């Protein structure tokens, strides 16, 4: 019962946040809406039995990345977003997005794989605990782990280089 309510609530929040992201005139409103979406998703991760990921989502995604976004928005205070004059290709693009959504929904509903997966989750055999996760990270996925750390390093360097004033 409770999971269901929680799910519907969080889903509604997430979708509402997404819609606000689209509709808002000011970018700062969009940023805040996105933060809301992320928080809702974090709760959903909890529901799905992934506490570590949920925590990481809040700390890193909502707490660092979105703060960065807000920071930049406030730095580049270019004011209101003007009324959009639609790019002609945007409308087909939007339609395509809708088609994409419908596609996935249809597939979920009607295809054999989709139906197979539509059943509820089994009782988790392995606890999605941090210990287990880190075991995987440092054993099977060690290489990607190290690689992403280098990637972050490169990103830092890149950002430094890009944001430097031309001297």
């Amino acid at each position, binding site marked *: 019962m409770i999971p269901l309510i929680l799910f519907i609530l969080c889903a509604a929040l997430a979708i509402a946040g997404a819609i606000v992201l689209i509709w808002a005139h000011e970018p700062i409103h969009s940023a805040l809406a996105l933060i809301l979406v992320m928080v809702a998703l974090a709760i959903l991760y909890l529901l799905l039995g992934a506490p570590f990921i949920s925590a990481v989502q809040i700390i890193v995604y909502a707490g660092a990345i979105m703060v960065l976004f807000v920071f930049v928005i406030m730095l580049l205070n270019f004011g209101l977003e003007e009324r959009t004059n639609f*790019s002609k*290709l*945007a409308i*087909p*693009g939007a339609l*395509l*997005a809708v*088609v*994409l959504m419908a*596609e*996935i929904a249809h*597939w979920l509903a009607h*295809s*054999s*794989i989709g139906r197979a997966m539509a059943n509820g989750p089994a009782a988790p055999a392995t606890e999605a605990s941090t210990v287990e996760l880190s075991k995987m990270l440092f054993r099977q996925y060690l290489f990607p782990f190290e690689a992403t750390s280098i990637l972050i390093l490169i990103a830092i360097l890149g950002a430094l280089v890009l944001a430097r004033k031309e001297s």
Partner: protein
Amino acid sequence: MFLLDHLWIILALPLLGSAINGLFGKNFPKSAVNSVAVGSVALSFLSAAEAVREFFLLAPAQIPFVKSYFTWMVGGEASAHPFRVDFALQIDQLTVVMLMVVTFVGMLIHIYSTGYMAHEGGYYRFFSYLNLFMFFMLTLVTGANLIVMFVGWEGVGLCSYLLIGFYFLKKSAADAGKKAFIVTRIGDFGFTVGILMVFATFGTVAFGEIFPQAGNISEPVLTTICILLFTGAIGKSAQLPLYVWLPDAMEGPTPVSALIHAATMVTAGVYMVARMNPLFSRAPVAMLIVAIVGAITAFYSATIGIAQTDIKKVLAYSTVSQLGYMFLACGVGAYSAGIFHLMTHAFFKGLLFLAAGSVIHAMGGEQDMMKMGGLRKKIPVTYWTMFIATLAIAGIPGFAGFFSKDAILEAAKDGPHANFILWLLGVTGAAITSFYMFRLVFLTFFGKPRYDEHKVHVHESPANMTVPLGILAFLSIFGGWFAAPKLIGGLDYFEKFLAPVFASSASAVESAPEAPAEATTPTMALVHSLTGWPVIVGVLGLLVAWYLYIKRPDLPKKWAQSMRGLYLLLLNKYYVDEIYAALIVRPLLWISTNVLWHVVDEGAIDGVVNGTATVARGSGGELRKIQSGNTRSYAAWVILGAVGFTALLFGLLEVAH
């Protein structure tokens, strides 16, 4: 047996001469060109003579002597009938006759040309082509299979084109060359199909392998093959309806007309029919067609000759007519008579052309007989040789032509395939032949000069032209004697000599009663032949011509006026060229221009190529718009790709499951 083993030497010598003159002759002095050209042909003649001498040392079982030098083409080895063509040459009695005629007359004409062409441009080129022609003609007559013969066949056609159009800057000459090549091509097409049919029927193209099998093949198949092969002969030997190129071929220099269009190339068709006689003898329908075409051509062409005024054109139509006689002979089964006439014709027709060339040379280039006259005293050697040749062609007893023409007409009357109508056409043709030939002589050499004597300085030709004339005149008289005596009850050496070649024909045909029972003694036979129709009409023609052109020279003009329609018809050669142009040439050109050029070439082929380019450019132009520089359109494209990819992925997963 050196030369018999190396028959190719006979062919290679003129080829070598042609190559040397063709490649280097531009810088040679005339004497060097002469030595190379005449020398190579003379050496070829000597080699041929030596080969003939060795030939006579062979035992009868070794004849025909075939020597294969290398395998030229091999195809389809895995199949039941591989296509194998060797470069093989052979020599038998028929080859001996042809070799001697071709090389000897060829040599004489080469010598003559050194005088005739002395003042013409392109001297080395002329002799190079002439030597090349000799090479191909020799290939034709010595080939041991149809393909080698065909190489020679096509090669002489090529040389004919080159030599007719020798004065290529003159449009009429260039056109005549093209006409010759194209018209003979039509015949060559039938010939090619015939060769293919031979291969399909016999599984081989070599003579030695075809002829023994000839008895086993059904008659309709043989008839078809023979008719197809004969169409090649119709083209090459200028019979009806493909004769139209020969009169136009007179645009070439006179020695060319003498060699190619009188003595050798045009006789290739006759040689081919004689060579393929085992097939023809077993296809009586084909033989009949050959005889009919020959007889009709003989008569028809003679009628055109009556009205012509150009000296070479008269001789051209005369050639067509005489070729008709040769085919008539082959068609009634008298192959040796046909070959005999081929030989004598080479002598007297070659002589006629060379003498005509001498006249033209003397007249400074004038070819219209109406502008000649009274040349008898001024160029006596030319006159006498030409007169002798005319006597020969008219069939006056004692001269070479008499014996050969008589043999043909005898066979047409009494032979195994005799036919009265054909004989009648032949005799009438003989009468007309005699008439127009003497007309030619009388118009050219007798009467008052119809030209301005101050402008034209008539002079006799130099020795290198008159000596060949003399030699040929000698042959025109005595060249027929060693076959003659059949009619006088003597040796009949020629026919006996050629008998082995035509043996299978003789056995395939039921023998009919020979000469009438009365002509048993030699004297009676002589009297019989002397009072035969050919002689009568020959003399008749002479008399009529004498009457019309010497006694009453005003008459021809009066008759031409009164029978104007008929006269014009003959003068304009029955308008055949015009008919062909309207019926065949113009529609063909129309189709070529409007259909093949505009529709197919410009529309379809160019259209495809240009269309590809247009499509490429157009699609490129459209695709370019994707790269608009507009970020959002990029975004839209990305999404489109994502949608498509997702659909594909789900679809594949669906299928895989």
